[in-house]
């Protein structure tokens, strides 16, 4: 707390500690506010201890003012005429009493300043804060991290495919999206080693095909990222990167970049998980420029990493994102990224963030009960194999919004020539 030093009145208590109000004042004098911090027990905010309410300080100050007024009005001339002796005695005592009241009142005011100055300063700053300007300064303009999300027109998916077990989700979630627009640069310490390649690969023509290729990333038992390269009809390159999910469920931080500790990092937004840098490194190895196009397919943590990569500032042009079983309720996709999220209703992972995905014209979330390939194992609905089957269901759906989303995601590949694939092994 800050001490009060009103002129000749020296704060100080018998135990040597300083405080706002301690001993009787001699004469009222102009207040000198000393900013020297002391170690009063009134550590509001610093130690989380409750000390005072602002209203109580104001009440005490107001009552003291009333008492001082009450005393001062007694010295009116008419009162002197009525009882001069008593008022003479009263007048002798009055200055010291008024001075005392005045000092106590000033002490209350200074205590209030000491306790609440941060809140008052903050309130003032909030009044004058210019959010659009700060956004512009921080983000370089053009990108608003909190856009107004239009509510989609009333869905009529039931009219076209009644009984469809694949259900697009509509509406606007209540959670404010986080922003992950912090630019990052690739870290050379993270190694991405190509471990194989294959030529003459047909472009994916369905979500099922993408999910199958996603699932194949798990087959080797290694942390494998798959990068496909095609040439579009317009001559530009179209890349697809497949990011697998958590490969090991050891709660202890391992060397593996796809372990639960990285999940925690991604979910809590503590830092860019290493795989984002690995994605960037892989793309740079292929000389992918801003004129080339990139589609990301991710399962579980891989989808979370892919979403964060799509949100981050870099020179790569991400135009599509297919996510399988990922908690993306806190994510916000920039304009121009077509996102299709598939979630199994019996999979707990998409619900880990306790929030529904943001629904925008460019982002559609589809839910369906998993076609569990491994019986009733509790984790089976989250497996890539389960999502492969769900993707097949989504492909079969006749839902209008779903067809549009699917078409937008797959259209870059419709006229693409056959390409080739490179596999990368991730090493921490």
């Amino acid at each position: 707390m800050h001490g009060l030093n009103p002129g000749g009145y020296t704060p100080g208590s018998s135990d040597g500690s300083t405080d706002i109000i301690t001993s009787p004042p001699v004469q009222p004098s102009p207040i000198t506010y000393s900013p020297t911090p002391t170690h009063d027990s009134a550590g509001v905010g610093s130690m989380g201890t409750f000390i005072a309410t602002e209203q109580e300080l104001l009440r005490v100050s107001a009552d003291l003012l009333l008492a001082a007024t009450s005393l001062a009005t007694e010295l009116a001339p008419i009162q002197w005429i009525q009882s001069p002796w008593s008022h003479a005695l009263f007048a002798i005592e009055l200055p010291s009493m008024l001075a005392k009241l005045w000092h106590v009142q000033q002490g209350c005011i200074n205590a209030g300043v000491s306790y609440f100055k941060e809140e008052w300063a903050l309130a003032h700053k909030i009044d004058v804060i210019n959010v659009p300007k700060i956004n512009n300064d921080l983000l370089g303009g053009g990108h608003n991290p909190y856009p107004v999300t239009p509510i989609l027109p009333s869905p009529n998916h039931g009219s076209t495919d009644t009984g469809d077990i694949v259900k697009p989700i509509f509406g606007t979630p209540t959670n404010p999206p986080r922003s992950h627009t912090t630019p990052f640069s690739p870290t050379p310490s993270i190694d991405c080693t190509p471990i194989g390649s294959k030529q003459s690969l047909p472009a994916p023509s369905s979500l099922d095909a993408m999910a199958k290729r996603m699932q194949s990333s798990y087959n080797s038992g290694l942390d494998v990222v798959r990068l496909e390269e095609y040439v579009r009809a317009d001559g530009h390159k179209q890349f697809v990167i497949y990011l697998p999910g958590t490969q090991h469920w050891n709660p202890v931080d391992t060397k593996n970049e796809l372990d639960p500790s990285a999940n925690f990092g991604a979910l809590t937004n503590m830092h860019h998980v290493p795989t984002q840098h690995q994605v960037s490194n892989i793309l740079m190895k292929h000389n992918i420029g801003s004129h080339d196009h990139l589609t990301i397919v991710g399962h579980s943590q891989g989808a979370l990493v892919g979403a964060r990569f799509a949100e981050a500032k870099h020179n790569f042009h991400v135009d599509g994102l297919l996510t399988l079983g990922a908690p993306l309720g806190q994510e916000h996709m920039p304009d121009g990224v077509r996102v299709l999220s598939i979630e199994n209703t019996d999979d707990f992972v998409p619900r880990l963030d306790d929030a529904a995905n943001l629904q925008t014209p460019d982002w559609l979330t589809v839910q369906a009960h998993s076609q569990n390939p491994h019986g009733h194992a509790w984790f089976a609905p989250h497996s890539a194999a389960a999502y492969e089957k769900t993707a097949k269901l989504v492909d079969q759906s006749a839902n209008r919004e779903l067809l549009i989303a699917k078409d937008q995601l797959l259209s870059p590949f419709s006229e693409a020539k056959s390409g080739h694939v490179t596999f990368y092994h991730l090493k921490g």
Partner: protein
Amino acid sequence: MTLLNNHLDVTIALVTRAQPSPTHWNGQAAQACRDELEKLLHQLRSLKFEMALLGLIPA
């Protein structure tokens, strides 16, 4: 005299009322405030007693 007596009583009541509530303000500063107001109350009551003793106001 009656007026002054009432005035002192009102002032004493106001100062008593001005004491910080222990539930809404605690710590050293609040205790110092209470101590000061207690001394002021004592001063006011002493004044009232002296005046009554001198017969300046009714006891």
